């Protein structure tokens, strides 16, 4: 099982980052897109999703992102 870092862009030009647990790249895309649509763009389509990184799912693993000032 891996912890995936996925970037998503939508047709309304939103750029999102999803972090999902999945056991394959295909599943990671699916979960990330579902989460993004549910949370941010229910009426918009996903234009592109990109897997940037995956890490083993272990205690203490994670990603750090800088917030906008």
């Amino acid at each position, binding site marked *: 099982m891996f912890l995936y870092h996925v970037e998503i862009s939508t047709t309304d030009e939103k750029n999102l980052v999803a972090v999902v647990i999945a056991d394959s*790249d295909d599943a990671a*895309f699916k979960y990330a897109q579902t989460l993004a649509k549910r949370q941010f763009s229910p009426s918009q389509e996903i234009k*592109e999703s*990109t897997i*940037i*990184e995956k890490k*083993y799912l272990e*205690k*203490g693993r994670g990603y750090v992102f800088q917030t906008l000032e």
Partner: protein
Amino acid sequence: MADQQQRPWESDKSKLSAFELTKLDREGLSIIETIRERASQGYSAFSEEDLVFFKWAGVYEQKPKGEGHFMMRVRIPGGILTSEQTRALAAISRDYGRNVVDVTTRQAIQFHWLTTQSLPDIFDRLEQVGLFSYQACGDVPRTIVGNPLSGIDPHELIDTAPLVEQLEKHFLLNPEFDNLPRKYKISISGNIYNTGHAEINDLAFTPASKVIDGEERIGFHVWVGGGLSAKPYLAKQLGIFVLPEDVVRVADGVTKIFRDNGYRQKRHQARLKFLMADWGPEKFTEKLLELIGSLPEQGKDRTDGWNAGYFTGVHKQKGDELNYVGLLLPVGRLTAEDFAELADLTDRYGSGSVRTTNSQNIILPNIPDEKLESLLAEPLLQRLTPFPRTFVGYAVSCTGNEYCNLAIVETKARMLSIATWLDEHVELDTPVRLHMIGCPNSCGQQQIADIGLQGSLVKTESGTVDAFDFFVGGSLGPDAQFNSRLKGRVKADRVAPVIAQLLELYKKERLAEEKFHQFARRVGTPRIQEYFSDVIASVSAS
């Protein structure tokens, strides 16, 4: 632990990660015996925790995890091998590793496809020729990187081979250092072109001189706290001058400081670079001198440039009598048969020595003038050529998704095909260093490349494709700086033409003698970004 005293980091267990707590109760190197005892029972004889500690024996599970195949890294101190050792390595690859031999960016050799059953025999065969996979991975001092030309190098101020040997002896299987907070990389080189890639090691020694008691002495300056991976740092120089006889004492002290003061709470912040970032070089120097006693202050830095670890071609050795021949291994890979043949060639034409470089290539040293022509005519040298074309000759790649569990994309074959395409389509007289990595961990040292390429996987309505982020302008040496990322991702099949376009800009606007990384820094990332954005818009549309 043999040492019954409490270790400094044990006093506050709240500052230890879960894995650090496990490391308190388990001697990492004991895995070697465990493997020897249980290997014949197969993969299932090992617990998940055992498999994590396999690294201390130099063994990693390869992709796909859980199927019982392993990668093994073998330490090649200073990159110096005898022909006997080379043959032994080739035979291991042939018998157990599906004929694959990889040379790494730290001069080590890697095998793939090994099973647990094969490990004891491989350990034995390595030991018989004085080689070890032990401590090639794990939270320990890794193989010592050295100048692959030591002893024969017209550009070295001091032969560092004996020092590599002393360091190797001091650190290998030394229980004092079998539990560091994280991996720990040492390099030492007397070459004035930074062949040891000093700035990206945890501890590095580079050539320096100082007048002591009226006499000019050759020694070293010391760099601490460099490292790549997702958060790269360049090492910082300490304020000391180190004579050759003090190298081991200094290395011992720096390593103890890391062991006892390094961070153990979060594994991704445990490398020595994070301690150095907090302490700074002055405090680090002060702590080191407190621990090991006084040393002369810094002398004169004698590093004069950076050759990126490349030695391809035929070159005169120190003394002008013999030659070394630097061969290109495309993206660092060769077959067991070819490796064994290199051993035969060095016996026949040279002095029975093969050397590995941190640009993932091979050197055959000590070739007399009269044997050069016949060596160069050997069929193997038509494939592993000393005279590679511009791009293939300077292309580096990490392992990628063929064997690596964390890779997002394939890298080795792709890097080779991109470099080959560029050689066929771009005329360029200056080498441009291309490095490709399959994820942000940077095993292929993307950050120091002229053009770095980092893979990702993109899904659109029309399907899933591999894509790459571009980074430009990295180098080590006196103008060391990591490269800068360009915005915009390029689909894998467009990477070569986009590089070609970037090189058109370079060819048009470069100054005389200007290398790509110098050009990228002079014109600046915004200028290159503007051009790059136009290029990717046009290649995506085409």
